[in-house]
C-alpha cells in the first residue's frame, strides 16, 4: 500500500496538491477527494467506482486523512480536503499502540475541548483510568505538557497534527461498530520461521539436487500442447457453463424458478440435450452422471459385458469405503468377479490377475487398483466409443429436448414464496444400482 501512497505524493506525477482553506486557516499540501479518485482511475486504468473503492481503503487504513470531518474515515469524491498521513503513523510500522499513549491522547482531548469526548471514548477513558491509575499523574502531566508545546506552534500546524493523531487513533482504536482494519486472522507460522530448514546443510542441498534431477527426468508435455488443450476444453464446455452462457429455461437464482433444477435432477426420465451431449465429451462425464451411467449399463448389458461396469463400481466402493469393511468387501468382490468360475467373471489379462490374486492375501483398500484400472481402460477404449456410435445413444440425443426460455414476467415483483428444498438428510437413502440388475431407462429409483 505504501507504494501507492508514495507515488501519489510524487510532486510531478502525483495528485495535484493545493493549499486549502479550512475555516480561517490555510493548510498547505492538501488534496481534494475528487482529485484522489481521478488520479487513481487514471493511473491504474480502472473505473471510477473501483478508484473510489481503492481510495476508501487507503483512507480506512489511515494513509490519508480528512481535514474537515476527522471523526469518520471515509473518502468523499468531492471538494473535501484530505492530506497524506506522515510515515510516522503508518499502519505498516506495526507499532503496538500502547495504552499509555492512548490515555495521554484522551486526556489531552478531555482537557482541551473541555470534556467533549465521544461516548465510546468516555468509556475507554474511564476504563484506562481504572487500569493505570498508578500512572495517572504522569498521564495528565504529559498531556498538559504536550498541549503547552502545541500552543507555541502555528495554528495550521496544530490543526494538522491534531488531525493526524485523531486519524491514527481512529484506526488503532476504532469505535464500537466500525470494522477494525488491523484485524488479522489467527496467527500463521511464517516461512521465515520454518523449522525444517534451520541450517542449509549438505543434506538440504543434496535433496534439492535430487529433486530437480527427478523433475528434469519426468516426462512432460510441451506447454504449447497443454495450452491448446485449455482452449479446446473451454471452447467445448463454454455453452454448458451457466455463468458464461446462461442456462435454459432460466437461472434459478435469478428468476426464482426451480424448473432448471427439476429438469436437471440427478435421476430424471428425460435428460436435456446439453446433458446428453456432455456424455460424449469424456468417459468420466458419462460415469459421473447417474442417468448416463444407467444408460451405459443398459448398453453393456446388450453386449454382454455389464460385469465390467459392476466390477468397477465395486472397486470404487472399496477404495472409498470405511476401513473396517475392507476385508469383507474384498472377499465379496473376489467371490463375484475374480474367482475362477465366478458368476460374473471379468476378463483381465493374466499378469494383472496373478498380481491381484497375490495381493488378496493381504487385503488393503488399494489391492484391486491394477485390475480396476485395466477394466476402466478397457471400457474407455472399447465399449465407450461404440456406445457413442450406437443407435441407443443417437436416439437419446435426438429425443432430448432443449427447454424453452421462460418469458420474462411482466410484473417482476410478483413474489413467489421460497420454499426451502428438502435436505438430502431427510430422503431415504437411494438403493445403489446393484450388480445383478441394470436400471431400465432411469425408472426413478426413489
Amino acid at each position, binding site marked *: 500500500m505504501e507504494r501507492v501512497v508514495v507515488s501519489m505524493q510524487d510532486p510531478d506525477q502525483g495528485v495535484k496538491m493545493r493549499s486549502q482553506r479550512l475555516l480561517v486557516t490555510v493548510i498547505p499540501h492538501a488534496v481534494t477527494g475528487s482529485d484522489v479518485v481521478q488520479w487513481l482511475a487514471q493511473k491504474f486504468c480502472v473505473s471510477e467506482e473501483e478508484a473510489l473503492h481503492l481510495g476508501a481503503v487507503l483512507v480506512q487504513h489511515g494513509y490519508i486523512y480528512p481535514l474537515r470531518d476527522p471523526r469518520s474515515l471515509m473518502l468523499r469524491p468531492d471538494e473535501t480536503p484530505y492530506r497524506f498521513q506522515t510515515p510516522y503513523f503508518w499502519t505498516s510500522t506495526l507499532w503496538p499502540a500502547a495504552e499509555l499513549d492512548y490515555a495521554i491522547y484522551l486526556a489531552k482531548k478531555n482537557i482541551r475541548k473541555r470534556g467533549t469526548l465521544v461516548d465510546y471514548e468516555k468509556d475507554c477513558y474511564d476504563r484506562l483510568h481504572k487500569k493505570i491509575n498508578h500512572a495517572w499523574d504522569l498521564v495528565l502531566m504529559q498531556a498538559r505538557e504536550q498541549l503547552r508545546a502545541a500552543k507555541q506552534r502555528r495554528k495550521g500546524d496544530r490543526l494538522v497534527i491534531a488531525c493526524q493523531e485523531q486519524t491514527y487513533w481512529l484506526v488503532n482504536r476504532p469505535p464500537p461498530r466500525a470494522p477494525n482494519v488491523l484485524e488479522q486472522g489467527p496467527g500463521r*507460522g511464517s516461512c521465515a520461521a520454518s523449522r*525444517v530448514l534451520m541450517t542449509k546443510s549438505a543434506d538440504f*542441498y543434496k535433496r534439492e539436487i535430487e529433486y530437480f534431477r527427478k523433475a528434469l527426468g519426468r516426462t512432460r508435455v510441451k*506447454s504449447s500442447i497443454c495450452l491448446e488443450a485449455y482452449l479446446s476444453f473451454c471452447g467445448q464446455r463454454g455453452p454448458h457453463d451457466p*455463468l*458464461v452462457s446462461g442456462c435454459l429455461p432460466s437461472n434459478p437464482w435469478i428468476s426464482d424458478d426451480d424448473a432448471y433444477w427439476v429438469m436437471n435432477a440427478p435421476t430424471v426420465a428425460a435428460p436435456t440435450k446439453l446433458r446428453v451431449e456432455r456424455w460424449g465429451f469424456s468417459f468420466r462425464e458419462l460415469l459421473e452422471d447417474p442417468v448416463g451411467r444407467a444408460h451405459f449399463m443398459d448398453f453393456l448389458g446388450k453386449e454382454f459385458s455389464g460385469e465390467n461396469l459392476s466390477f468397477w463400481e465395486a472397486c470404487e466402493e472399496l477404495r472409498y*469405503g470405511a476401513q*473396517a469393511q475392507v476385508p469383507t468387501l474384498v472377499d465379496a468382490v473376489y467371490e463375484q468377479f475374480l474367482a475362477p468360475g465366478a458368476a460374473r467373471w471379468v476378463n483381465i489379462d493374466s499378469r494383472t490377475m496373478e498380481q491381484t490374486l497375490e495381493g488378496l492375501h493381504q487385503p488393503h483398500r488399494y489391492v484391486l487398483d491394477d485390475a480396476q484400472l485395466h477394466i476402466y481402460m478397457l471400457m474407455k477404449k472399447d465399449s465407450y466409443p461404440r456406445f457413442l456410435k450406437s443407435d441407443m445413444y443417437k436416439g437419446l440425443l435426438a429425443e432430448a429436448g432443449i427447454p424453452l426460455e421462460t418469458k420474462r414476467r411482466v410484473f417482476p415483483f410478483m413474489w413467489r414464496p421460497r420454499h426451502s428444498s428438502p435436505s438430502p438428510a431427510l430422503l431415504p437413502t437411494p438403493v445403489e444400482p446393484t450388480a445383478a440388475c441394470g436400471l431400465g431407462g432411469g425408472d426413478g429409483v426413489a
Partner: protein
Amino acid sequence: MCDQTFLVNVFGSCDKCFKQRALRPVFKKSQQLSYCSTCAEIMATEGLHENETLASLKSEAEKVQKKKAKRHCFVLHQVAERVEALGQFVMKTRRTLKGHGNKVLCMDWCKDKRRIVSSSQVCHEHAVTMPCTWVMACAYAPSGCAIACGGLDNKCSVYPLTFDKNENMAAKKKSVAMHTNYLSACSFTNSDMQILTASGDGTCALWDVESGQLLQSFHGHGADVLCLDLAPSETGNTFVSGGCDKKAMVWDMRSGQCVQAFETHESDINSVRYYPSGDAFASGSDDATCRLYDLRADREVAIYSKESIIFGASSVDFSLSGRLLFAGYNDYTINVWDVLKGSRVSILFGHENRVSTLRVSPDGTAFCSGSWDHTLRVRGMVFCFPVCERREDG
C-alpha cells in the same frame, strides 16, 4: 496487538561440545537441540564427501534448478490471442444470507446445488456451537447427510445432519482428525467415509471417518498448510495443497509422496483449486496475484494480477467450463478473471469486510462468497453484453 518474535540468545552449555557459549536452536531429525555457533557450522558441513564443499553443492543445485526453469517459454495468454473475448458481465447478488453473529470463515456447497454450510463460530442452519473460537474449515459430505468442520481446536469433527428438533447435534459429533496445530482445510473424498485435512502443523492427512484411523499422512511442506483441493481425475488419486512456505505441492494419496511442487508465488498461498479438466490448478496468494499451474508441463502458465490490486487473494474458484476464475480479495472485492486471456472481466463490490471464502455451486449456476462482514452473498449472472468494441481494461 501484533506478535513479535525474538530470537532469544541463550547462554549455556552446548549439547555437543559442552562448552559454555551463546547457543542457537538447531533441529536435527525433528528434535530441537541447542548448539553453540561453532558446532552449528560443523553440523552444516556434515555429510560432505571429498571434493564437495557447501558452496559447490549450492552452486550445483542452482544450476540444475536453472536448467529446469529454462524450458518452454510459452505463456497462456499468448496462445489465447485468437480466442474471442468474453463480453461484459453483470453479476447481481441474488441472496444475502445473514445469520452469523460473527465473521464467516469458510463455506461449502452441498451436491444438491442449493444448500450451503458455512462456519465461523456457529455452523449455519444447524446451529452447532463449537467449543473453539475460530472454525476455519468446513465441508459437506457428498451424500449431504453430514458435515465436517474444525479450526483452532486442532481437530476435525463430523456431525451427521438431522432434522429432529429434539436431538442435540453436538452430542452426535464424532471427532475424526487430530493434528498438533490448527486445522486450516478439510474435504471429503468421493464418499462420506474418508476425510482429507490440512493443518497448521505443516502436514496433510487422510482419515477414516468411521474409526478415526489415520490412513495416510503427507509431509513435505516447510510451514503451515493453508488449503487443499482434490483432483477431478479419472483415477482420483491426487490432490494439491498450498502453504505458508509459498509452495503448492501435488500429492499421491496412495503412497503419501509429493509428486510435483511449484514455488513461484512471493507470499503465502491462501487457496488452491483444480481446473475442471484436472490438468491444471489455480492458486491465490497474499502477494495479490493468482497463478495457473499446468501439471503436465510442470510449470506456471499464467499470472492474474493488476497494479490496482494490492491486497492478497483469499480464495479462488473456477466456473464450470474453466473460462472464468473468481477470486475473493482482502480489500472486500471479488475479481473475475478470464482464464485464457489473463485479463480481468469484472470487479464485484458489495461486501463490507474482507472476502474470506468463495465457491461456485456444483452445477455452476451461481457462486457464493462469505466475508468477515458476517454475510454470505450468492450471485448469478444477469446479463452478458457481447463485445462491440475493445475496452482497455488491463
